[in-house]
C-alpha cells in the first residue's frame, strides 16, 4: 500500500468535523465533501498550472477569521466554506451571511467566498462582499441564489477564467516595408513601456509578491521584449522568437 500523504492533517480535519457536528450523518457528509473538494481542486491545479493554485486549510491557519479552505490563485485568492446539505437541499441563513461579510471584510485580497454544499457535485455559489450585503438586505433573493448553484468545478473555472486577461489581436499580414515597421515599432514600444510602468506601480496585498515585484528587472526585460519586437517586424520567424520569449519568463521567476 502506498503511504499516507498527510495523515495527521486529515485526522485533525475529521476529528474537528466530528466535534462540531451533532448528527453522525452530517459528520460523514462533511468528511466525504472535504475529500471530494480536494479532489476537484487537485484536478483544477493540474488544468491551470500557469495560475499556480495552492489549497490550504484556511481556518486552521488563521482561526475564526478564515473559511474552511483557502485557494491561492496567482495574486488573488478564493475562500471556500463547506455547508451541510441534508437530502441534497441547499440552505443559507442570515447568520451564515453575516459570517461571510465579516470574513470578506477581514480578508480584502479575497476575490470571492465560494459557498460549497455537501452534495455529490458540490453545488456552489460564489459571493462577493457586495452580493452578500445585497442578500442580507434582501433575504427573499436567497432562494433565487440557491437555484443558480453550479458544481464547484465549474464555479472555480469560471472565476479563474474571468481573471485571465485575453488579448484579442487580429492576425493580419502586414506588408514588410521599412517605413511601416518603424511606425509599428514606435507604437508598440510606447504601449509596452506604458504597460511595464503600470506593472511596476502595481500594488500587491501579498508581501512576498510585493518584494518579488520590486526585485524584478523591468528595464532589462523591456529591452529584451523590444528587441524581439524589432526582430518580429523584420520577419524573424515565430519559432525562433518564442524561444527567446520563453526565456523571459524563466528569468522573471528567479
Amino acid at each position, binding site marked *: *500500500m*502506498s*503511504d499516507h500523504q498527510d495523515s495527521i492533517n486529515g485526522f485533525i480535519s475529521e476529528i474537528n468535523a466530528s466535534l*462540531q457536528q451533532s*448528527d453522525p450523518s452530517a459528520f460523514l457528509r462533511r*468528511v466525504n465533501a472535504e475529500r471530494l473538494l480536494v*479532489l476537484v481542486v487537485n484536478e483544477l491545479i493540474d488544468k491551470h498550472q500557469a495560475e499556480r493554485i495552492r489549497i490550504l486549510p484556511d481556518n486552521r491557519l488563521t482561526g475564526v477569521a478564515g473559511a474552511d479552505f483557502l485557494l491561492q490563485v496567482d495574486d488573488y485568492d478564493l475562500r471556500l466554506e463547506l455547508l451541510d446539505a441534508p437530502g441534497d437541499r441547499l440552505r443559507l441563513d442570515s447568520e451564515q451571511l453575516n459570517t461571510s461579510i465579516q470574513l470578506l471584510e477581514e480578508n480584502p485580497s479575497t476575490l470571492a467566498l465560494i459557498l460549497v454544499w455537501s452534495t455529490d457535485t458540490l453545488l456552489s455559489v460564489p459571493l462577493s462582499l457586495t452580493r452578500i450585503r445585497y442578500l442580507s438586505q434582501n433575504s427573499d433573493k436567497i432562494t433565487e441564489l440557491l437555484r443558480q448553484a453550479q458544481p464547484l468545478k465549474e464555479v472555480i473555472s469560471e472565476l479563474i477564467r474571468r481573471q485571465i486577461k485575453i488579448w484579442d489581436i487580429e492576425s493580419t499580414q502586414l506588408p514588410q516595408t521599412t517605413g511601416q515597421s518603424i511606425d509599428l515599432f514606435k507604437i508598440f514600444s510606447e504601449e509596452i513601456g506604458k504597460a511595464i510602468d503600470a506593472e511596476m506601480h502595481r500594488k500587491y496585498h501579498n508581501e512576498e509578491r510585493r518584494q518579488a515585484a520590486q526585485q524584478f528587472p523591468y528595464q532589462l526585460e523591456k529591452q529584451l521584449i523590444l528587441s524581439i519586437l524589432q526582430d518580429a517586424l523584420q520577419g524573424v520567424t515565430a519559432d525562433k522568437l518564442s524561444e527567446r520569449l520563453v526565456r523571459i519568463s524563466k528569468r522573471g521567476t528567479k
Partner: protein
Amino acid sequence: MPGSDELLKAYLIVDNCFLVMLTDCFCNRFAVRCNQSRLVTEAEQWIDHILEILQRFALDGNMHCPIGVANEFIPHTGQMASLRGIQRNDLNHVQAHVRANLHQVPVDIPGVQSLRTLPAAPRQLVGSGGLSDNDLSLVKLALDMTTTGLPVFVLSNDQSLLDFITWVRIQKKHFQAPITPNLIQGWRCLTYLELVHRSCNITSDLMKELIEYALVDHYNRKEIAGSQKGNIIFQQLIQVYGNFNQSVVIKHQGKAEAA
C-alpha cells in the same frame, strides 16, 4: 458528535497500512516496557486486543481483507525487525498470527481492473503512479459486500485510496443493483479508532498512546529544518491534543449520562 455505536457498525475491511500502524505503534510505545522474552507474545496480544475491539463493530464479527493485501503485511520490513532480540522466526510468527485474525478473501483481477476504466475516474488516482491493483482490490471487495444492503467500511491511512472510495461512492450510475456504492465509507484508521474510543470501547490511555505514536511518526516524516515548517507541525500537534482532550470530555459526559 457524541460517541455513536450505530454510526460505527458495518462490515469492516482493513488495509495493510492499518496492520502496519498497529505493529509500529506497539514497537514505538510498548516494546520498551516489555520483557524481551515475551516481546512477540505481547505484540500479538496487543494487536489482538485492538482487532477484538473492532470486531465488536463488525456486522459479521470479521475483519475482511483481500488476500493480496493481507500478503503485503510483512513485519520483516517494518520497525519490529529492528527491535533487539527479534529473530526471523519471531517475525514469521507475528505475520502468521496477524494474518490469521483476518478473513482473507480472494478478489478477481478483471473486476479490479474495471475500476480503473470507470468513466471520469480521477487519473491521478487510477493512472500510472496511482493506486495499485491491491489497493483497488479493497474497493472491489467493498463494492461486492454492498450487495448485502448494509454499510461497508474500509479502514486505511492511504489518502489516495480514501479519495477514490469517496469518488466511487457517488458513481451509482456506473454500477448495477444490487451493488450500492454509496454504502461504502472510507475511514482514516485513527479517526475510526478515535470514534470507537469516544463510544467508550477504547480506553483514553490506549487512545493517547495511538495518537502519540501518530504524532511522533508524523514529526519524524517531515523535514523541519525551516522553522516555519516546524511551527506548522507543532501547531498541528497542539490541535490534535486539543481535539483529543475535547473527545475525552465528551466520552466522560456520555459515561455520566449512561450512569
